[in-house]
């Protein structure tokens, strides 16, 4: 990570991959079935979601491909099921399998983007607050306290409702993904900032940081090169678990109708649309997106649990 130098001695050391396979992390992974299951499911879901344009029978965003006489077809194992609509179709003749694949792609992308953005905000504010302390620390952490005291969903509703009104109508569909990411980030960064701040205060007091300060190293470099790498372990765990949370928040907002529009449905949007037809017996329109969402979040959480245990020195 901080290796600026090429290996001067001839490379008799094992490769990076070989070293990883000898590490404690890999060992604990191979000895935890739930982690393996989580990883397999998550990999499968991610690959299929991003391969959606190649493997999906239909492009659910293209109205020209939708045939109304194919609407409300049941899954293929039911009596009226039709190939290639494996999981049936919704009221507009949209293939559910395709919609789920494309929807997962949107859900995953929004989840990743909001985790990355909140990491960037949370890490930098947490480092600054912990390193400089005093007024900056108080100021940033009180803002964080206020945000934490309001439920995540409420903040997200507020942000997306306000942003939606401010966006011109032609940008609403395009901008809704960005608004969702922003809304989730606004409440998610606090947790990272707090974790990093606490760790930064611990590391700042250690003597290697004082040694660096003796060299008149600029504060920015001390924070990035000395302190940040030593705070990342709990952050990795939090980020993994928050990835699942972000997908759920996105689904909730879309379910409430302030997330992704029906023209670009995420899993949450699909559940909302399907929910309306549940009582007319068209159960497949809502069940399959729900199952997909559950699988996605559970597999992420299984991985997060493993990571939390594997990186906790007390549980080794």
């Amino acid at each position, binding site marked *: *990570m*901080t*290796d*600026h*130098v090429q*290996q*001067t*001695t001839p490379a008799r050391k094992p490769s990076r991959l070989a070293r990883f396979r000898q590490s404690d992390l890999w060992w604990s992974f191979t000895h935890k079935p739930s982690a393996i299951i989580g990883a397999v499911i998550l990999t499968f879901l991610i690959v299929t979601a991003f391969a959606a344009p190649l493997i999906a029978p239909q492009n659910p965003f293209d109205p020209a491909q939708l045939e109304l006489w194919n609407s409300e077809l049941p899954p293929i194992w039911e009596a009226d099921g039709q190939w290639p609509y494996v999981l049936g179709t919704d009221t507009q003749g949209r293939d559910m399998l395709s919609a789920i694949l494309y929807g997962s792609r949107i859900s995953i992308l929004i989840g990743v983007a909001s985790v990355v953005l909140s990491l960037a905000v949370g890490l930098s504010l947490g480092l600054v607050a912990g390193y400089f302390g005093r007024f900056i620390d108080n100021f940033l952490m009180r803002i964080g306290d206020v945000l934490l005291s309001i439920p995540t969903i409420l903040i997200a509703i507020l942000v997306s409702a306000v942003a939606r009104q401010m966006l011109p109508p032609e940008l609403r569909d395009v901008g809704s993904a960005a608004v969702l990411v922003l809304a989730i980030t606004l409440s998610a960064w606090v947790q990272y900032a707090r974790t990093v701040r606490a760790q930064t205060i611990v590391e700042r007091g*250690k*003597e*290697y940081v*004082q*040694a*660096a*300060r*003796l*060299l*008149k*190293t600029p504060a920015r470099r001390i924070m990035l090169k*000395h302190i940040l*790498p*030593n705070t990342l372990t709990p952050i990795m765990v939090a980020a993994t678990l928050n990835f699942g949370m972000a997908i759920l928040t996105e689904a909730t907002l879309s379910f409430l109708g302030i997330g992704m529009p029906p023209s670009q449905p995420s899993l949450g949007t699909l559940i909302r649309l399907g929910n309306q037809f549940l009582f007319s017996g068209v159960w497949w329109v809502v069940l399959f997106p729900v199952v997909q969402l559950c699988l996605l979040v559970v597999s992420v959480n299984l991985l997060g649990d493993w990571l939390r245990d594997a990186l906790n020195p007390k549980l080794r």
Partner: protein
Amino acid sequence: MSDALTVNDLTCNFDVSAPWLNRVIERKPRQFVRAVDDISFSVPMGGCLSLVGESGCGKSTVARLVTGLYRASEGEVRFAPGKSGEPLSAQMIFQDPYASLNPRWRVRNIIAEPLRELKLRNSEAEIMERVGELLKIVGLAPSDGAKFPHEFSGGQRQRISIARALAGEPEFLVCDEPTSALDVSVQAQILNLMRKLQDEMGLTYLFISHDMSVVRHMSDRIAVMYLGRIVEEADTETLFANPRHPYTQLLLETIPDITHPKRGRSIAASEVPSPLNPPSGCTFHPRCPFADARCKSERPEMRSFADGSRAACHRIEETVKAINAA
């Protein structure tokens, strides 16, 4: 011989007040700890001055004040001009060999950090060559540079710390209890290494320790600290042969003696008083076997003696007066 470092009337207060809201609710005033209280000393060029004292007496604070990690509330720290004409550059060796090396950096990068930050070498090849030299100087192999700190023992880590300190090409080294975390056999190795480096490179040391035998081995001159003040300062041999201050006598009694392993020690039973609320007058009076009413009310001044020692104690003053009168 000229002085490498002069410290005049150095004082350092730490604000340990409760947060503002708690202070308002509980109606408590701001609270300060006077960690270092009006101390003065100087270190001769190429010499070694040791600061000794119990935990919490302000030794490490002095070390951090001297290197500039803490800002002094009052007083000044002045380094003499070095070879380059600039004030002497100081580096520091820390107490805890586990916390003083960044666990995620390879050793060669830890040692190269001063070279890179202070731009002491131009090319990466020169930096790595110097890192190899430094590792050899402190008794490690250049190939150890590729390892991480956790692969080394405490003594080896302290060698790495020394190598990093030397990489900054200092003429002055502040050593903050460099051996107190090590076991005794390793302590001797590290101390001998530091002595050797002093002879070879003409370094000046400010050495901080609570261990009288370590201090005797290392230093030319010793200053004894108690609750933020210097109570006695003398050349090493003078101090051990003729300890003047009762506190110094107490400290010397704590040295284990191989010929009298079970000798009785009249160690004052009480703990060090809290620096938050130091005793009046001479801060040592609650533990001092010779204390009287004057010690409780009046702070003793530092007095110099003919053999170059200094001490702050009313009793010594009175004894000297009595001898002069006789």
